[in-house]
């Protein structure tokens, strides 16, 4: 289903059939599984989700070539930040702990002097991801919310020394170490009788990497241009 654009008439279950990566998006919108044959439009109406926004997120996330030029003007920054914060929570509370448990199993099962260093490397990487997410949650998003509030209500804007350009510059690549980790496990870590354990770990690392890339695309293609638009109106 790569390249197919999701529309409101489609069934939620068909989206999942076409691309299982869509599964992780549902909790971010408060959609629970067990939705039967409901269409996207139905579910959005029932749960009070903005249909256009939902489609924008799903399509940008699933499709690297999707470029939502026209829809950007209507994107609500608060809604967008709400979505991104949900995604961050998913990484912090679900994905990272699971990865950590896999690394931990690997470490306990594999007897090799390099395994301690591998764990250290992984921990270091996780710290980097946490810092990256915390920076966005604590510095970038609050700024964006203030800009948005000003746009909506003209509440007095305090002096600000931040801009989306800073965000863009700092929006560094947090997948680099992940790719190193994959390489080490595939090419260099000697066989250690770990078999499926290492495969499970690798699968999870690959999924996580892809998830992060898709997530970063939403920030680059939607968040940054939308906030830049707002800044133009405000300044």
């Amino acid at each position, binding site marked *: 289903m790569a390249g197919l654009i999701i529309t409101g008439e489609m069934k939620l279950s068909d989206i999942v059939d076409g691309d299982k990566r869509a599964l992780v998006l549902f909790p971010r919108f408060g959609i629970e599984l067990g939705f039967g044959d409901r269409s996207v439009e139905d579910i959005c109406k029932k749960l009070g989700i903005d249909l256009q926004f939902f489609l924008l997120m799903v399509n940008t996330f699933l499709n690297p070539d999707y470029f939502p030029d026209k829809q950007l003007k209507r994107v609500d920054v608060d809604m967008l930040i709400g979505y991104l914060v949900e995604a961050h929570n998913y990484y912090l509370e679900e994905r990272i702990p699971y990865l950590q448990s896999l690394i931990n199993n690997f470490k306990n099962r594999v007897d*090799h*002097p*390099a395994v*301690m*260093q*591998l764990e*250290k*490397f992984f921990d*270091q*990487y996780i710290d980097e991801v946490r810092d990256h997410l915390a920076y966005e949650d604590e510095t970038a998003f609050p700024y964006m919310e203030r800009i948005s509030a000003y746009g909506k209500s003209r509440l007095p804007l305090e002096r600000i020394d931040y801009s989306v350009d800073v965000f863009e510059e700092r929006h560094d690549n947090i997948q*680099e*170490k992940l*790719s*190193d*980790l994959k*390489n*080490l496990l595939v*090419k*260099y*870590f*000697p066989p250690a009788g770990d078999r499926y354990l290492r495969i499970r770990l690798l699968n999870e690392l690959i999924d996580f990497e892809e998830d992060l890339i898709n997530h970063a695309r939403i920030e680059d293609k939607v968040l940054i241009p939308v906030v830049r638009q707002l800044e133009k109106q405000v300044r």
Partner: protein
Amino acid sequence: MNRTILIAEQSEIIRKGLVQITGNLNLFDNIHEISCSSKLKTSLTRLEPDVLVINPALIDPEMQQWLAGYRDRKNGSGTFDTDDSNEDGDNHENTGQKEIKPGYFRIAAIIHTLIDDELKGLFDEVIQVGDTGLKIKGKINSMLSRPASPGSPVQDDTLSSREKDVVRLLAKGLSNKEISEELFISPHTVITHRKNITRKLNIKSVAGLIVYAIINGIVNVDELHDDKNINK
């Protein structure tokens, strides 16, 4: 700089001519000549010339293979036989007699007639018998200033012993500058080594390289500088 050239050619007229011409170039401190292939291996091993000018007629298939291997080892892109035990960069005892000092080595063909297609890959340059002295000078000069040709097209992603040195020092927590001082090379060369290491291994972070270094016995766990290696 002490440069050596070895000329291997049966024809005395041509050999003496080349000795004369290369002598006038003021590029070489030592000029050696041999007239048959039987002395080639020992001359190369003993003299370690920077340039070999050789008549392709002296190169039989066995010699071709030997020369390609010799050149790869000299240029730091090959491995020694199938012996893995000399992984450790600073342990020269293991490699013993086989160790050939790294340094660029280039081969030029001196030809009278057409050159065999299979042999072409071996040469960095081809000198024609009809070339003028000036032209030969230009060819040797450009050969010396070019990076060594990759030799046999074998894609070899193992690290050279110098690159292993760099990895080991990185793992110990040294900066590029400290590494350059330790190895007596310029910081620029350290950066070049690091680029090549990353390209060969497809590992970009220092932390990842540390894991690689331990896996491959380039560094021992207890050699790691504990807090420093956490830094980028």
